């Protein structure tokens, strides 16, 4: 063996050893990992916090003096810090994080009311601005009252336990009937007036978050019936929606009701899955909007005698688009907040939910813009806004179960779907919907429900199970056809039961108090006849061929 051969063999041996070590490293590391050792009181009793002399100097870095063992409450000062104290504080911290997250997201959703008010008011004529704004303003008060009295109890009265919020254990009574050997949860029975045992910190957080969702549903209807809806009829309709219709479907989907148990009782995937409410919030609102639109009928001037539709432009695109952005912002509370927490049980997926929401809104507006540009030669502002909202509505239900690529596809489809749907309701069905609420929320809400059954990728894991079925929600494209069937049953329930319930009640209201204003009031604009005050008193409103006061023009300007 010469020197070169010797060196080669040495090098080969070194490479061999390094390679073997590299391959064995993970195994060795696993072996070297310290075994889990249970901590005892002895381990924590010696932990000391910073001294008072150091604390009085201030803590500009925030690294070592603030948030120490001094901040952990001790249950018995004589014994000192125990493991029980530490563990209890860990549990309290988890629930505190979840409370804070859920409340802040609820506040964001509440702010969406401003967005809805601006979008709807901007899309109607100036002569009805006060009326439309006041409908959007009062859905908050009317809906909240109805929901506090009985809506919340009907929806969530049997939903316990909700682990992320500390259990909400007082909400433990669900009315269940048995039909052909299968249990059907129909409505909750605890939490009326938030009184009695439901006076609980976790229940309060859940109430706030669910209440603002309900409020979103009620505000959808006001847009579809704008410019001809009697204000008194609107008040009655909103109370009924907040007290009965919305809570019923909310219970079936989110309150341990029968739709959520389709997986447990019928073996259909994870039962009806609606992460943040494409069905519960948007379809219920959109289908109620359809029922009310049918009953109040189209505005004077919307259709010609031959049935062809006219475009009645809104009066302020600036507030439409600004309102749309407020809604998109609020949606970051709507969808990520629906985890009801940020700590534990797979809640770290909030980042994914937020990105999915963002992407679907983006592709929705882009698709609508392109569709309108290609079809009519111009990029349409109001339909771009509706496209963004349609994408957001459609991703609401699947946002917790799908990946970013699927979100883009869902948003894209929603953006085109909303344009096609608006044309369908205008030209074929001849249903007058001034703001496109039926198309944005009703149609795309149903599409969102369907999308869960198609696109859910089986990667989400919220505490190991969903709706009582172990594993992750998985759609047809990833191998679970049963999930698609559960979603179809949900869609059928929305179309068959919720629409009918809304229609019958509003029909009865129409017979008793009347839903529509008289023609004279409609032509004059509803601000004075219904509300007693103009929204823009310093502006002269233009007279159109229908006798309508239309576009606001500053006093003194030439017409």
């Amino acid at each position, binding site marked *: 063996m010469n020197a070169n051969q010797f060196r080669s063999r040495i090098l080969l041996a070194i490479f061999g050893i390094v390679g073997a070590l590299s391959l064995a490293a993970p195994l060795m590391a696993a072996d070297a990992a310290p075994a889990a050792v249970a901590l005892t009181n002895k381990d924590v009793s010696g932990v000391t916090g910073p001294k008072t002399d150091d604390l009085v100097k201030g803590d500009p870095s925030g690294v070592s003096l603030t948030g120490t063992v001094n901040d952990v409450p001790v249950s018995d000062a004589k014994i000192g810090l125990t493991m029980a104290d530490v563990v209890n504080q860990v549990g309290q911290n988890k629930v505190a994080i979840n409370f804070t997250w859920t409340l802040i997201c609820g506040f964001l959703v509440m702010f969406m009311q401003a967005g809805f008010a601006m979008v709807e008011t901007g899309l109607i004529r100036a002569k009805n601005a006060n009326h439309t704004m006041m409908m959007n303003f009062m859905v908050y008060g009317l809906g909240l009252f109805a929901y506090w009295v009985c809506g919340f109890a009907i929806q969530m009265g049997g939903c316990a336990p909700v682990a992320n919020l500390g259990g909400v254990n007082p909400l433990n009574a669900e009315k269940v009937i048995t039909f052909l050997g299968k249990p059907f949860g129909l409505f909750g029975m605890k939490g009326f007036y938030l009184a009695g045992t439901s006076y609980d910190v976790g229940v309060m957080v859940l109430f706030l978050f669910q209440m603002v969702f309900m409020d979103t549903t009620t505000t959808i209807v006001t847009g579809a019936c704008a410019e001809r809806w009697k204000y008194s009829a609107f008040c009655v309709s909103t109370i009924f929606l907040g007290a009965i219709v919305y809570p019923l479907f909310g219970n079936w989907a989110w309150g341990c009701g029968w739709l959520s148990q389709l997986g447990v009782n019928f073996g259909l995937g994870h039962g009806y899955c609606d992460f943040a409410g494409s069905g519960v919030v948007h379809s219920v609102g959109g289908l109620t909007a359809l029922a009310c639109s049918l009953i109040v009928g189209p505005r*004077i001037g919307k259709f010609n005698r031959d049935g062809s539709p006219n475009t009645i432009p809104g009066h302020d695109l600036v507030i439409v688009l600004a309102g749309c952005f407020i809604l998109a912002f609020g949606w970051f509370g709507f969808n990520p907040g629906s985890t009801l927490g940020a700590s534990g049980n797979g809640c770290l997926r909030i980042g994914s939910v937020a990105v999915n929401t963002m992407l679907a809104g983006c592709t929705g507006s882009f698709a609508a813009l392109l569709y309108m540009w290609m079809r009519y030669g111009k990029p349409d502002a109001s339909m771009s806004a509706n496209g963004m909202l349609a994408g957001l509505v459609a991703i609401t239900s699947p946002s917790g179960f799908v990946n970013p690529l699927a979100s883009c596809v869902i948003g894209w489809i929603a953006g085109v779907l909303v344009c096609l749907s608006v044309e369908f309701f205008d030209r074929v069905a001849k249903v007058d919907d001034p703001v496109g609420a039926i198309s944005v929320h009703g149609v795309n809400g149903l599409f969102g429900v369907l999308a869960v059954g198609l696109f859910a990728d089986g990667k989400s894991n919220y505490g190991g199970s969903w709706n009582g079925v172990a594993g992750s929600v998985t759609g047809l494209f990833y191998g679970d056809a049963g999930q698609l069937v559960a979603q179809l049953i949900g869609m059928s329930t929305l179309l068959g039961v919720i629409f009918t319930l809304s229609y019958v009640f509003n029909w009865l209201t129409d017979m008793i108090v009347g839903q529509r204003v008289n023609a004279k009031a409609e032509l004059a604009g509803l601000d004075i006849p219904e509300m007693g005050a103009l929204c823009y008193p310093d502006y002269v409103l233009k007279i159109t061929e229908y006798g309508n006061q239309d576009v606001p023009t500053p006093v003194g300007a030439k017409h």
Partner: protein
Amino acid sequence: MKIAGLAVVMAGWLLAMAGLFITGSNAGRAIFATAGIVISLIGSLGILNSAHLATVIWKQ
């Protein structure tokens, strides 16, 4: 006509629900549910809407 429309809307849902008990296969249940959705749409956008369009304001 309005009541007939509502009856058809409800019938669609009942058909979808019936599928849950009639068959245990996902394909069968999907067919029942889809048929139910279509029937409900015919009831609401077809029959019920036609009843409203018969007396609509722009025809008067």
